């Protein structure tokens, strides 16, 4: 195939301990480490492996956000993407808005395969890939843990509650990645240097899609309910006694 489009999102790094702002308007992001959403990194890694296996000619990585997102696009280029696209927006898009924008990009770029992470670890929505597939009128293969690309179809094994489900989809299609699809490569310094020369194009969001206003609006943020502090017991007998006391075991 000609082209794989990988859609990524800049998120607070997964290792960061999240704190809600005291004024309830969001989480603290000042000075906080930002990274490519881990699931999207897996998506990019999969695309790169497909290109390296000779199944695709070009891997394009795209994201929606402020100019700061160029940092993550450069990481994507350093990992091995051929081209990057920043769809510049001054406010957050929700998954439906993002899906509409990426669909407009698909109409420009005509990829045979679109891969993205199954969910962003900030909003945990798990919607964008599915919405994109719906708007595009194409198949969705979500929570992929294995991908087998053929001439005009893809066989995808998905991690579902009951176990592993395999489906077959006609291309072009949207695939969303789960954790065990692959382990992304580390970026090496020479690749970071090379990435500076790769093309990074900026498109204004309004030039791509009209209606991206959020329909689901966040009105306030709160820390999670705290659990009561627990106790340490010294031995199994004490543990058994505590469990019986709570009526949890006979």
């Amino acid at each position, binding site marked *: 195939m000609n082209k794989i489009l990988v859609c990524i999102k800049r998120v607070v790094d997964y290792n960061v*301990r*999240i704190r*809600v702002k005291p004024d309830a308007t969001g*989480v603290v992001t000042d000075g906080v480490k930002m990274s490519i959403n881990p699931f999207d990194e897996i998506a990019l890694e999969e695309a790169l492996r497909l290109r390296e296996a000779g199944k695709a000619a070009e891997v394009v990585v795209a994201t929606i956000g402020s100019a700061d997102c160029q940092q993550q696009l450069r990481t994507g280029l350093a990992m091995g993407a051929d081209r990057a696209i920043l769809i510049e927006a001054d406010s957050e898009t929700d*998954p*439906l808005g993002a*899906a509409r924008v990426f669909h407009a990009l698909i109409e420009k770029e005509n990829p045979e395969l679109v891969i993205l992470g*199954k*969910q962003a670890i900030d*909003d*945990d929505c798990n919607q*964008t890939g*599915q*919405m994109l*597939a*719906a*708007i595009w*009128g*194409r*198949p*969705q293969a*979500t*929570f992929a*843990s294995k991908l087998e690309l053929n001439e005009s179809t893809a*066989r995808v094994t998905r*991690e*579902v*509650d*009951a*176990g*592993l*489900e*395999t*489906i*077959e*989809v*006609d291309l072009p299609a949207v695939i969303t990645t789960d*954790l*065990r699809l692959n382990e992304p490569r580390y970026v090496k310094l020479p690749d970071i240097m090379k990435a500076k020369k790769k093309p990074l194009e900026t498109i204004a969001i309004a030039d791509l899609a009209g209606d991206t206003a*959020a329909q*689901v609006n*966040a*009105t306030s943020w709160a*820390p*999670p*309910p705290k659990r009561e502090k*627990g*106790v*340490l*017991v010294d*031995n*199994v*007998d*004490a*543990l*058994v006694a*505590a*469990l019986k006391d709570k009526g*949890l*075991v006979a």
Partner: protein
Amino acid sequence: MSKVLVIAELNGQQLNPSTAKCVACASQLSAAAIDVIILSDQCGEAASAAAAIAGVNRVLTAESTANKGSLAAVLAPQAVAVAADYDYVLGPSTTFGKDLMPRIAALLGVGQVSDIMTVESPRSFTRPVYAGNAILTVEVADSKKIIATVRTASWKEAPAGGNAAIESISPTAEIPTHTRFVELQSATSERPDLQSAKKVISGGRGVGSAENFDIVYKLADKIGAGVGASRAAVDAGYVANDMQVGQTGKIIAPDLYVAIGISGAIQHLTGIKDAGTIVAINKDPEAPIFEIADIGLVGDLFEIVPELEQKL
């Protein structure tokens, strides 16, 4: 007056308990009616079960061989056709619902609220973000149909006692052929289902191997518990993926959760925050799991777990 459509989830031909949880959530929306739709190749058994849930007004059955495999691409256009008459469409936040609901929302041109924890008002909900480290209150813009998934760990099943009418329907929808079900590999187990078990014994990287997991299974079987695992244990190949508990696995709310050899990464804790009592067994007293555990025992799990199994 508003109407709610709940999309039922099936396990084969049986109704998944997640459906009764969606009905419970729907009951807080001040709606005039809650209907349940069963989209399956064999609706009968599930339809009877759905009709018996208290609060259900009507059960709609859309039976067709195309529905075998519950593919989102096949179910979504049918749900969209039926959704025209409804103000809310709810599904469970299970892999079934997560796959299907956003496709329905996008086809309807509306956003989606994922993982409803609480209903604050008919258009306002709370949901977890950042792996449950922040709780977000959201409001859906006026005049938009509300599509949502219900966080099953936050809701008790609506009780039995319903006596809804069951109606067979044939939604007018173009069913795509671009997606085909191939197979489902499912570990069959006699143990209680992890998603709904009242007691869960869970193993992590500390357990060390697939063979060693036997001590976890033995303890679980002694007290009739389900078995779960951390992501690390699944990645290491000790157990299958369907046992994973955490931000990107199953979010559960048993009365008792025993974490064995699990360090307690933020992403794992997301999956168990709603458990009644959390017990942690780990040799590392600094393990983050002890910060959330109600009862902690520091020590060698290979000594503690067999002793615990013996004494229970």
